[in-house]
């Protein structure tokens, strides 16, 4: 029934397009991740001013849906916060390539009366808390990293996302990376079997729970934490420095990864080397077929991607996304040129 409705709508749109403009308008459909939706819609509306003959339509239905739809070829491009597994790539009818667009980071937020923002946490602390092994705020492992901070003798209430999300995927990727225990017991994924804690729906659910309940800890997207001025923890990175989550430290994570970037960009950015690299960061990708079925559409997509890399990146920071570092932009430009 939906497809019927959609064709009717499409027909209506087509009629409008014919009535509105004499020249044929190329409509390019995409679907996928919700996390980059604000920046993508900004790009598409800006790009409409650059190239009036093309119209992008993006539905933020979630990474899982984006992967399904691009595999089924019901959309012209997909978008995902997690890269495809080898099995998923094989299931696609053609060669799918990953185009990293921007980066996001995950912030550890908390609510402990008397403890201001900037609580220092190591990877062992965070994984210990989420594994349910560190249960009190005044645990020696936390206290040792925070000399001078008076931590209460209260149980830690752990909050996590209940809905499947890319944020959870990045966060559990980090925990799997830093803790062999986590990797063996839980693993990484958009929804995992949490050893402890409460589930809140969406960033707002986790933030709401943390805000309204004392002695809680949770994790949210960087942009969400900044917009809502949530307190956040500074995390110890791989090089042993405590790093404040920011757009700059997120970009630094990608710069740290640039040296060993695989050609297909399927790389996780958590726990990357670099003095300033924030440890819980990740790419978000567009998924396009290397060989486009419709040459005209393919050409338009390539033109857009080139524009996005050159001009679009500058709009990222204002919307609290981390732009790609120059070294990565250069690599991606070459990849984009290979789309036919």
């Amino acid at each position, binding site marked *: 029934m939906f497809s019927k409705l959609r064709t009717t709508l499409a027909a209506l749109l087509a009629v409008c397009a014919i009535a509105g403009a004499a020249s044929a308008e190329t409509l390019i459909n995409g679907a996928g991740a919700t996390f980059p939706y604000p920046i993508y819609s900004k790009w598409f509306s800006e790009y409409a001013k650059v190239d009036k003959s093309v119209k992008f339509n993006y539905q933020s*239905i*979630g*990474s*899982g*849906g984006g*992967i*399904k739809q691009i595999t089924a070829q019901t959309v012209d491009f997909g978008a995902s916060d*997690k890269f495809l597994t080898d099995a*998923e790539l094989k299931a696609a009818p053609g060669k799918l390539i990953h185009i990293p667009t921007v980066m996001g980071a995950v912030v550890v937020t908390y609510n402990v009366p008397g403890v201001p923002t900037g609580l220092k946490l190591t990877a062992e602390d965070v994984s210990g808390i989420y594994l349910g092994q560190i249960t009190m705020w005044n645990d020696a492992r936390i206290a040792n990293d925070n000399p001078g901070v008076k931590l209460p003798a209260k*149980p830690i*209430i752990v909050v996590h996302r*209940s*809905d*499947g*999300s*890319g944020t959870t995927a990045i966060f559990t990727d980090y925990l799997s990376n830093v803790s062999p225990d986590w990797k063996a017991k*839980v*693993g*990484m*994924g*958009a*929804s*995992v*079997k*949490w050893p402890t*804690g*409460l*589930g*809140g*729906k969406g960033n707002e*659910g986790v933030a*709401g*729970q943390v805000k*309204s*309940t004392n002695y809680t800890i949770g994790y949210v997207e960087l942009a969400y934490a900044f917009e809502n001025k949530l307190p956040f923890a500074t995390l110890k990175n791989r090089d042993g420095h405590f790093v404040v989550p920011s757009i700059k430290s997120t970009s630094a994570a990608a710069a740290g990864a640039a040296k060993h970037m695989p050609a297909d960009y399927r790389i996780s950015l958590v726990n990357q080397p670099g003095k300033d690299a924030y440890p819980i960061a990740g790419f978000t990708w567009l998924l396009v077929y290397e060989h486009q079925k419709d040459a005209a559409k393919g050409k338009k997509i390539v033109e857009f991607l080139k524009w996005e890399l050159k001009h679009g990146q500058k709009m990222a920071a204002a919307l609290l996304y981390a732009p790609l570092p120059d070294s990565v932009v250069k690599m991606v430009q070459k990849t984009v040129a290979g789309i036919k």
Partner: protein
Amino acid sequence: MSHEEHIQDSGFAGSFNGDRIFKGITLGFAFSVILVLLLMVAGMAHESLPALRQFGWKFVSGSDWDAVQGNFGALPFIWGSIVSSLLALAVATPLSVGTALFITELAPRKLGGAIASLVELLAAIPSVIYGLWGVLVMAPWLQQTVEPFLMEHFGFLPFFRGAPYGVGMLAAVFIIMIMIIPIVTSITKEVLLAVPLSQKEAAIALGATKWEMIRMAVLPYGRSGILGAVILGLGRAIGETMAVTMVIGNTPQISLSLLAPAYTMPSVIANEFAEASSKLHSAALMEIGLILLVITLIINIAARLLIWGVTRQQSSGGRK
């Protein structure tokens, strides 16, 4: 079906062409509803085949839910749904029947009308608003006031043990209760209004007090209708998704404690379906949907039978 026979028996069928067309059209409508239901069941069963094959009955009895390892057991969700709905219903039913009785029998007409429309207004509030209120206002209140009180005074019972999180089974029961009160109240009110005046007058003429009149004349007459209202409330309770997801804590576990977080069937579907990338994961969620549908059907059939039973008892009791 019986309607159909009735029309044919009456001898009108076929005498007017218009009647025949009208009959055909309405028959088509009636069957299209059934067809939609069957198609839905078939579609969901087809989509959940991978999970049905992999887990069999273990899916219903297992309590491990791990999307990373590909292990799925639905018992904590079934438990959460049934327990939260039944508890909410147990609290909401006396409240709703009491409210309806006050509106119809005891309150001055103007006050009763005002209360009735206020209660109906509650039904118009979207469930996400209830959820927001639940998570921002009710959960902190539960956490800071109600749950510490319960733990202190009733902590010897297994139902009130654990840490006060605010969100959890108790919060879900409260939210569902508030959401089903309007529906149960307004249907019960209509049922009570339908009680014939002669019945009530007869009771009063026998010297009954107001309470005796309600017990002897009003409640027995309305019994099947009230039961129907309660079942409708249960239907809403078990399917409620958004508000429950926001306050139940979303942890798949089976705990006797009302303070512990839990999880329901609609919640896990709403939470995980959009990002379920493996086939088995989406199949498992589909199967949960199927189980939910079956449970709802069972409830409805049971309700039908109960109401029939009650009505038959009543009519035979009346003849005595």
